[in-house]
């Protein structure tokens, strides 16, 4: 790719990204940072776990995103009686024209571009695990047959942190498959006023698709490939690896808080999430290469949900985000 073409590709990425952001912002009031993180994960090819109290716009963000991108959208409301087949699809007996009966696969709601798994922690672990294969390998296996999911495939799962009764905590393996975890904060006074004004009128603002629906999947795939082309120098890789190792007890230079409060640190997927997210950040900044600051910017969203804390952390009221911030601080000091 010549420098001029590469420059143009970067500008195109920036334009698309900011256009989608603007469209989503038409219907979603506030949450700018959360939207940026969600879009970053989308273009990096990952999935996002959204945590927030009810009624602050989790579902609206996801729906608006799908609309703005011009991609297909499905929603699954997770409940305790939801079965895996309700997600992946199932085989039904069908009679062909010649009278012969055969099994026919009826795809579930997972076969879409943007999937909202609402209140994912209300389903049983077995049902939650039905998403694992789709999220990690972009395919679903039913009765020994694998069916590829649509591309691009983007899962946004929501968690309600206040109603924990009758919920099942997500298994670590499933948590690890989410590229980022986003916490939606309660809206401020001015944001709440704007929400009231925009949602109680005769016409609710709807985002227009930035990408034409027929070419949107291909465009998104192109942009995702562009993200993968961003250069990462060895020193950035070294830094990222050291950062991920530093979240693990006994992983070299460890902050005191890690040693005291962390049972298991981030997996290598955390490092991948950091680099992929940083690549998107670099493109948004108009650069063809990743800087260490890009990594640092994405650390809380990429690593916090991968840490397994111990009882001491719970009793001390120390959260994963706080520990990750401390590790990041010590890494920054060491680098300075």
């Amino acid at each position, binding site marked *: *790719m010549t*420098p001029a073409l590469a420059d143009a590709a970067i500008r195109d990425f920036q334009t698309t990204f900011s256009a989608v952001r603007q469209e989503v912002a038409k219907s979603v009031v506030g949450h700018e940072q959360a939207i940026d993180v969600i879009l970053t994960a989308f273009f990096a090819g990952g999935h996002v776990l959204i945590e927030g109290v009810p009624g602050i716009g989790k579902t609206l963000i996801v729906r608006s995103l799908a609309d703005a991108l011009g991609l297909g959208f499905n929603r699954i409301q997770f409940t305790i009686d939801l079965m895996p087949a309700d997600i992946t699809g199932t085989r039904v007996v069908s009679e062909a024209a010649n009278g012969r009966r055969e099994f026919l696969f009826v795809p579930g709601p997972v076969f879409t571009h943007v999937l909202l798994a609402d209140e994912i922690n209300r389903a049983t672990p077995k049902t939650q695990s039905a998403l694992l294969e789709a999220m990690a390998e972009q395919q679903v296996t039913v009765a020994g047959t694998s069916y590829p999911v649509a591309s691009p495939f983007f899962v946004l799962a929501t968690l309600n942190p206040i109603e924990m009764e009758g919920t099942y905590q997500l298994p670590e393996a499933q948590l690890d498959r989410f590229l980022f975890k986003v916490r939606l904060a309660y809206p401020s006074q001015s944001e709440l006023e704007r929400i009231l004004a925009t949602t109680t009128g005769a016409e609710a603002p709807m985002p227009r698709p930035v990408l034409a629906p027929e070419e949107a999947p291909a465009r998104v795939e192109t942009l995702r490939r*562009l993200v993968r*082309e961003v*250069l990462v120098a*060895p*020193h*950035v890789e070294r830094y990222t690896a050291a950062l991920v190792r530093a979240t693990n007890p006994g992983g070299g230079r460890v902050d005191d808080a890690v040693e005291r409060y962390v049972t298991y640190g981030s997996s290598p997927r955390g490092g991948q999430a950091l680099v992929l997210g940083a690549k998107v950040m670099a493109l948004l900044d108009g650069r063809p*290469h990743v*800087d260490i600051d890009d990594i640092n910017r994405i650390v809380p969203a990429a690593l916090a949900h991968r840490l397994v804390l111990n009882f001491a952390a719970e009793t001390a009221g120390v959260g994963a985000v706080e520990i990750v911030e401390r590790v990041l601080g010590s890494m920054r000091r060491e680098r300075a």
Partner: protein
Amino acid sequence: MSERFPTAVLEPIQRQLRRVRWRHNGSELQRAVFVVGAGAAGVGAALIGLALRAPPVPFVVGGGVLLLAWLALGAATVWRVRRRWVRARRTAAWVDRRAGLRGRLVTLLELARQQPVAPHAFGPLLVERNARGLAEWTPARVVPTAVPRTALAALLAAVAALVAVLLLAPQLRPPSPRLVYLRGAGDDWPRGVDGLDGSSAQLVVAPAPGADPTAAEREAERATGDAPEAASIVVEARSLQQRIRDGVWGKGWDDGDAAAGGGERAASDRKRDARRRAGDGSTGGAAGPDDAAAAPRAAGSRTATRAGGAGDGASGAGTHTDPNLYGIPAILPHTSEAAFQLALAARVRAEHAEPRPPEGPAPPAGPDLRPALAGRQRNEAAVHRMPVPSRYEPLVRALFAHRADERP
């Protein structure tokens, strides 16, 4: 060098990187030298000031503190240089941070060090941006001041302070041992030495307090009690103080002197030195420029020794006796246990202040070989030094003082 990136682009970048590194490291080295030099000059100035003005114990304490401060400054400077020194391998990352290139430079150079695996789509763009952005991180931009001005100003200020102390050193000279003259031979001895009026310069009394190394050492040893090591440090420090004083004021600065003012004192020093050298000119020794006139007179005086009248000194021996003929007087502190040593001023032997030029025929050799002995011993037999309880000091000084017009 990797084939992934063109050498024509990488070489100018690496040359410029070297220039930036040299400029920065040179600046850091200069800063370190300036700071350490400023510290040395400042400590030197303070140490000389202390040596000239302070008593031994404050000199030891102050000197120790100054020395420690300077060592701490040196250690801090070395630590700072080590911390801020930019190594070749880290230069690109350092320039990146300093010039705000957001990793552009270090990414290019790090990737260039790697073995090429696959072509990068964004490689040409990275190369092109680096080649175009060379002017963003020129040595003058990254390291704006090659010479650290603050450190240089500190060095100049400290050197100025040192020079000022050296220039002012003669003014800092403590008062010489006092020799007080009283007018009138018939005057009674003064009731107290302190009450003497210096303007009536006729009576010579024993020198006033001055520095006596041996006395100071004894005092220091008393002060430190049974700690021989501490006493040794004090003695060494006192010796250093003495050497500094000798170096600044010249050897023998603490000899007794009857001159009153600074300029007169200096002139008197020269005269006294000339007299002394003339007196022991036969013993040899190096002669300075001031001694040039005195030396021939000293040589000729041997032939004119007998030419003078009774009571006159020989021409080579000088006409005034050194007040400290029997050694440098010392005064100890007036404590109940202390004793002071009285140095007796020698009698005045002649009226004239200069050695008499040789005159008349040379004296026969015989009497020189066997000079006639006096018929009897003088009534006043000099006792060179004698420890006397300090409470008797005024009385003893008054008793042993000599009238200026008294003849032997």
